[in-house]
């Protein structure tokens, strides 16, 4: 009666496998990305991979126009993310410079400024306005900020002499003492 109508076939095996593979792949992809979003920034205890930061001319470190984290093995590194268009960053700029000045002679502490998604002329104007002297440079291609998974500026990451993160400060510091007390944790 109905022989010339397509038979009662199930879904062919190759199609079933493809559909399930696709579905599982999609869910896994979305799940992993969701996990990444929920991760937040790097946490104390994480080992920080090596990264390199090119520096603005006039803000070199020991004559070098590009520095790597590994250059500072054995020192406490204070890495501050900022931008010239970021109003809260201005609240802590003078404090950071003052804290740096107090550690400059010591030699065991390094302050680094990573300029996040900014334009050089405005960045220089900002640095000049607050009399910043510690090494600063642009975070090219947002590679470093993505590695730290920052969610905005200003954020400051304190790395101990072994390259392990030990403190995260989200938002501007309220005082020089605050900065110094955190640095002091890793200075014998």
């Amino acid at each position, binding site marked *: 009666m109905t022989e*010339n*109508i*397509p038979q009662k076939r199930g879904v062919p095996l190759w199609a079933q496998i493809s559909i399930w593979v696709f579905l599982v792949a999609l869910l896994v992809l979305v799940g992993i990305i969701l996990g990444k979003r929920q991760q937040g920034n790097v946490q104390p205890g994480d080992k920080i991979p090596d990264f390199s930061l090119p520096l603005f001319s006039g803000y070199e470190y020991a004559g070098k126009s590009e520095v790597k984290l590994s250059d500072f093995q054995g020192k406490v590194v204070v890495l501050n993310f900022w*931008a*010239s*268009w970021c109003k809260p960053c201005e609240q802590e700029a003078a404090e950071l410079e003052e804290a740096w000045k107090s550690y400059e002679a010591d030699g065991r502490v390094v302050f680094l400024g990573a300029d996040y*998604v*900014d*334009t050089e*002329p*405005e960045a220089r104007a900002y640095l000049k306005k607050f009399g910043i002297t510690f090494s600063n440079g*642009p975070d*090219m*291609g*947002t*590679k470093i900020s*993505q590695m730290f998974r920052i969610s905005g500026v200003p954020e400051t990451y304190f790395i101990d002499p072994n390259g392990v993160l030990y403190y995260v400060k989200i938002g501007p510091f309220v005082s020089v003492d605050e900065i110094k007390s955190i640095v002091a944790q890793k200075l014998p």
Partner: protein
Amino acid sequence: MNNTFYKKSLRITYLALLLLAALLVSTSIVFAQDDIPTDDDVNEVAKQLYCPVCENTPLDVCPTEACRQWRELIRTQLGEGMTEQQIKDYFVANYGARVLSEPPRTGLNWLVYILPPVIILLGAFFLFRSFREWTKASATAATISAERSESESSPAKDDYVARLEEELKKRK
């Protein structure tokens, strides 16, 4: 006395010439400033870029202070003679590939451009093949179905009118 007067007038002439030269130089600087890229020139480039900080906002539209600075940066770069492509490359190097409105055609990103046409063509192919199977199946009872189709193949217009008349008759 003639000598002093002569020297004085020479000095005045020199001063006048100096002043004239200065005037000429300054006006030529003013003329050079007329070559500043217009807002439209800037927007032409900014339209094709996305704000590096905000979410999915084109750079020519973004209202923040930072975006204003980027647009001024583009203006400066255009004034220096950078081409559109060079400006885009600069932005990518500084802020990452997400500032472009399309993924750059490198590496894995080729998948974006290739996969949709491939999938669509595959889909069309499968559909066509299934269709062939259906029509082949119906052709096995060729004679009878041919006779049946004859009556159905009348042009759409008469078919419609015929059916309409049929139904209207039923209802009257």
